[in-house]
């Protein structure tokens, strides 16, 4: 009887915790539909069969500037492009907040920085950001060909805004893409994302 009680207690502990922050690794990534900065519709479900990388960005954030300024983000995008991976850059800054841009400005930034995303999606309501519990810029996610979440976390392993640290850091996204191409498991699938907080709209 005591055993039964203990088992019931344990079951209760699990049942009560269904509410988690963001999508879980190995589980289907939440679907979203949007229109990119070139007017093309983007739906996550349409990319089934291909790897997808999500990158949260805010071009004025020192941590984003670190990686774009040193060409590290572009290099990572290049690796993805060569593998035929869809790269979606998402901007969730609310209107009036740092990093908020219109479509024209977003495209200008892509051209200026020589960035290579497949799509840039504006998310001023923060809907996609909250769906993924994206907290910082840059915050990175990799979604498998079967639509399941394979990676969530930071761009690399050294939490700093200094470009000089990039050389010593492990680029988690490049490493994960390499492992996936080789048919291996992602070794570091859940890392700590560092950067500036995403400036979401209040409430909602």
């Amino acid at each position, binding site marked *: 009887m005591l055993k039964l*009680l203990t088992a*019931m207690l344990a079951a209760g*502990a699990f049942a*009560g915790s269904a509410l988690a*922050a963001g999508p879980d690794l190995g589980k289907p990534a939440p679907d979203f539909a949007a229109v990119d900065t070139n007017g093309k519709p983007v739906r996550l479900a349409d990319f089934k069969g291909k790897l997808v990388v999500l990158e949260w960005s805010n071009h004025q954030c*020192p941590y984003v500037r670190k990686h774009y300024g040193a060409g590290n983000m572009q290099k990572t995008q290049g690796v993805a492009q060569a593998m035929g991976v869809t790269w979606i850059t998402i901007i969730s800054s609310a209107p009036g907040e740092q990093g908020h841009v219109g479509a024209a400005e977003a495209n200008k930034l892509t051209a200026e920085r020589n960035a290579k995303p497949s799509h840039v999606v504006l998310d001023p309501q*923060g809907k996609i950001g909250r769906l993924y519990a994206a907290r910082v810029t840059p915050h990175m996610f990799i979604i498998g060909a079967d639509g399941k979440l394979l990676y969530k976390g930071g761009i690399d392993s050294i939490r700093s805004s200094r470009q000089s640290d990039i050389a010593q850091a492990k680029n988690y996204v490049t490493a994960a893409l390499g492992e996936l191409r080789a048919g291996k498991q992602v070794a570091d699938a859940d890392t700590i994302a560092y950067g500036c907080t*995403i400036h979401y709209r209040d409430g909602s």
Partner: protein
Amino acid sequence: MRVVVAAAWLAAAPAHAQDSAASDTVKTENVAARLLSERIALVPGETAWLALHLAIRPGWHTYWLNPGDAGEKTEIAWTLPPGFSAGAIQWPAPQRLLEPGNIAIYGYTGTAIHLVAVRVPADAKPGERVTLAAEARWLVCEKICLPEDGKFRLTLGVQAPGSVAPVEGRWADIFDAARAALPKASPWPATFALAGKTLTLRFDGAALDAARIETIEFFPTEPGAITPAARQAVRHDAKGFTLALEAAGKAGALKTFEGVLVIKERLDSGTVTQAFAIAAAPGAAAPAAASSLSLGLALLMALAGGIILNLMPCVFPVLSMKALSFAAHGGGRRMGRHGLAYTAGVLALFAAIGAVLIAFKGMGAEIGWGFQLQEPVFVMLMAYLMFVIGLNFSGLFELGGAFAGVGGKLAGRQGLSGAFFTGALAAVVATPCTAPFMAAAIGYALAQPAPAAMAVVLALGLGMALPFLALSYSPALLRRLPKPGPWMERFRQFLAFPMYATAAWLAWVLSLQAGDGALLATLAGAILIAFGLWAWSAARNAARRGRRIAAAFAILALAGAGALVAWAERGAPARDAAAAGERWAAFDPAKLEALRREGRPVFVNFTAAWCVTCIVNEKIVLQSDAVWAAIRKKGIVAMKADWTRRDPAITRALAELGRSGVPVYAVYPPGAGAPALLPQILTESIVLTEFAAFPDRPAAQRAGQ
């Protein structure tokens, strides 16, 4: 308003001015940063304390060691002369700042002081001037974030080895504040356990007074083990408290769980923040799982627990006698009504207990199931009750009237009220047995709004009544009970022994709570009760005159037992005095007056185990050798007034001092002068300064102490 504050802040420091040898200032867009030296010179072989002091623009913040969801910790890179070395930053306790989007960061607003110990080599040359250079980087954020940095240089002279370098008076407050904000050694052993997505942190030791606690927050040193923005649910119980944290990706890999526990406690003098360094070891699943229990499951568990209660040594005998009396009578519809009346009796008593629990909780008291057992008088009465039931089973006396069911009289001969009271009695008898079984469900219930709490308590009662109810409605079940016969009498006599055993256990509990005096009182009372009941029983069978005499004996004996209960209650605090510790004398107002008349100063430490600030003051200040050296030197009598259990004498003494809560530190001068009250946050220097006012006590007199 903000503009004015900001303007004042801008004026505070000119850009990069070296205003003295002991400080160097850098002014950035959002931070006025200074590198300060606590002392104006260095001493070979000693540690020099430096501080990076950041005055942060209003509305902006910098970050802690673990910055939380975003940001980056402040860093200092040192360039020191050969032989010098700098330690790691001593981080003050952080604040948690919440932002939209379920984001939280750990950092500082206003000012952030980062202490660093610099080791001066023993071969540093006296008379030389030495330059300590540092490059600090910090990320400062409001809505946007800016990485900033500053280069600092301090040039200080080296003094002779063994000399004492003077303190730079201007920074003394800053260094004091910085040390006060550092996490202290934790007085509570901590363990952690992961269950699903809940990471529980358990702190054992003293139960805190929840009514005085404003917030309890845990800040992990390493990022990734918990969700920084998630609510941290606190649950207090009699043995300590538990934090339920939302686990994140790295929780599974924890070996030890380190961090800082920040408690904001309300005192008479305002709210005080205390921080403790925590290194939690892996532990068994903490009892906090209750918070993630669903209401349905809690109800189910309470029901199951209630059924189990029927098997408890204190309940089973009562119930089996009742059941057997049913069996003797055969069952039928009338039995069903009796079953319902019994159930109503059980539920009425559980409802009453539930109402008391909820009412106490509403008043802010932290109590759990079994709270009654913390009261020695209740324990004593329970022991008597068990003993009396045992005597009844043994056949020393027979009961009539409402409690007849206990006596095994036939159920048919008594009214429904008899069944009702049997139910209530069974519930009373069950309470000492409930605590260990029902802790989870009741713990859950107490954390819920009143209706849910009541539902759980009633489910427990229903579970307890259920077997009996089923029996009364099912003749088939009833037929399965053994046939009544003379063996029932022997069985009843046998069942007296579990009751005696329970009484013995309760007497032991009482001896722990209230000492051997109370134990003696209980045993003497038990004998008086046994005698009284025997006399009463004899009186019922005797002729009229003998009846009066026997009844008088019975009343006298029972009154004697009652007086012993009262005496035991008064005697109870004796144990606290003994436990107060050898160095501290137990607080005694009469002794206090006598000592003052003798010309002795008295220091009274009004404290309680549930008061966080009291514990910190004792650990950091009142246990220090310097304080005890002064106490001995000045011939001060140190008394401890332990208010862990409310004590009327201490409450009165506090009221006389114009206070309503602890900590209070009162220094009574010899004679009749008014006592001096020390601040609620002590430092060694405050205590020593106060004690210094008294003349030294001659060594000859000291030896006699």
